[in-house]
């Protein structure tokens, strides 16, 4: 493997890792809201979360460009207030990956939150736990399967993210050129299938790693299942 390829792998890991970790709290919050909330605009939030799944990635990238580009309202605000620019930067790639991964993460987490036995939360309240503490000590850990599934899905989706990324932050070596963009580049050159295959295998191995890690973590937290089967 060439040094350039190592750089691409490292960048993909950084972009996907940051995207998933930074999105976890937001995703869990949204999942919680959708699982538990009863308010008028709920279906709209639900639809909004699903948006990046429904739209072709290129459109999502284009919307990100309009909003977070140097001339976009959100982009200008980020630049003025935090000195953060996203365009052509790896941070922008991470944002694109995060947006694309969000619906998958939210759904998985929501499923697990809905499966939490709410009577246990009531029991915790009688033992003196505030709603926030119940959330942190009961709901959150009981939703571990969904958290892990969400993280794995989000990571895999981020590793494979292409359309929104290239549309939003272009294809800049060392900054936004993740594995899928490199694969796209290699595909542009006829007869370059070995590079494509190698990069694809690397992407698969990275996700396999995430998959294994999540299985191990799930087994650690596996109080609920396995064991004796009555």
């Amino acid at each position, binding site marked *: 493997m060439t040094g350039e390829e190592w750089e691409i792998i490292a960048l993909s890991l950084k972009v996907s890792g940051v995207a998933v970790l930074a999105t976890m709290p937001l995703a869990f919050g949204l999942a919680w809201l959708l699982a538990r909330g009863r308010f008028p605009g709920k279906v709209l939030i639900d639809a909004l979360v699903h948006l990046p799944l429904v739209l072709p990635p290129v459109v999502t990238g284009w919307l990100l460009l309009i909003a977070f580009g140097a*001339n976009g309202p959100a982009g200008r605000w980020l630049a003025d207030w935090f000195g953060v620019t996203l365009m052509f930067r790896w941070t922008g790639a991470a944002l694109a990956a995060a947006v694309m991964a969000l619906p998958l993460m939210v759904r998985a987490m929501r499923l697990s939150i809905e499966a939490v036995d709410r009577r246990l939360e009531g029991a915790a309240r009688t033992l003196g736990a505030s709603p926030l503490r119940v959330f942190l000590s009961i709901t959150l850990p009981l939703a571990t399967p969904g958290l892990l599934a969400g993280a794995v899905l989000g990571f895999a989706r981020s590793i494979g993210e292409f359309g929104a990324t290239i549309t939003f932050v*272009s294809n800049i070596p060392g900054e936004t050129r993740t594995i899928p963009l490199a694969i796209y580049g290699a595909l542009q050159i*006829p007869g370059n299938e070995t590079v494509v295959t190698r990069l694809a295998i690397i992407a698969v191995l990275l996700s396999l790693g995430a998959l294994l890690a999540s299985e191990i973590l799930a087994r650690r937290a596996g109080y609920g299942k396995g064991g004796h089967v009555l």
Partner: protein
Amino acid sequence: LLALAPARVAARGPLVLAAASLQEAMTDAADVWAARRHEKPVLSFAGSSALARQIEAGAPADLFVSADEEWMDYVAGKGLIRPGSRAPFLSNRLVLIAPAGSRANLTIGRGFPLARALGTGRLAMADPDAVPAGKYGAAALTSLGVWDGVKGKVARAENVRAALALVERGEAPFGIVYATDAAASRKVRIVGTFPPRSHPPITYPIALLKTSTNRDAEAFRRFLLSREGKAIFARRGFAVR
């Protein structure tokens, strides 16, 4: 950090946004340029439409090489290129291809029997409504009077490379691609070249962007447009002007 940022921009080569089909040739050119003790240009390859929209959104880039005039017009229309820096850069030829093993024999000319040769098969080409290569292809077939017969048999691919892949795999008996693409693939055979007058001239325009801050940008543009620069592209099959 803020103090370092401008320094970093200066230490870096110009950022070139180029149509994806230029990938190999432009990389060659950048390597030659870098070998001359210049900072190596940073190359970003994507579809011309994506690149144009990034420029419109305020992307801090230096040079834009579009695969057609239309998207360069778009960017120019928004006042985003440096006046006087736009120049026709490269050209290409359009060819009819078939899988390497195919024995199909067709001579491109007015009313040539492409529809009959296709039979129930499909003609692979880039989307004639959207992608430059497809538009040129449709124009060529129209002027040769065969478009009406084949337009219902077109498999519209996302780009030229995807059309090429369909022919390489034998999924489509014929395809229309750029000569550069056909030359690069050993799995297809060129059946014929479309007469240059059968379609609007294929040009890849180049321009310096308004936002450019890199002091090497103009020099690199000149290098690309120089005889030496164009020779690099000619070696990859592009026609140069």
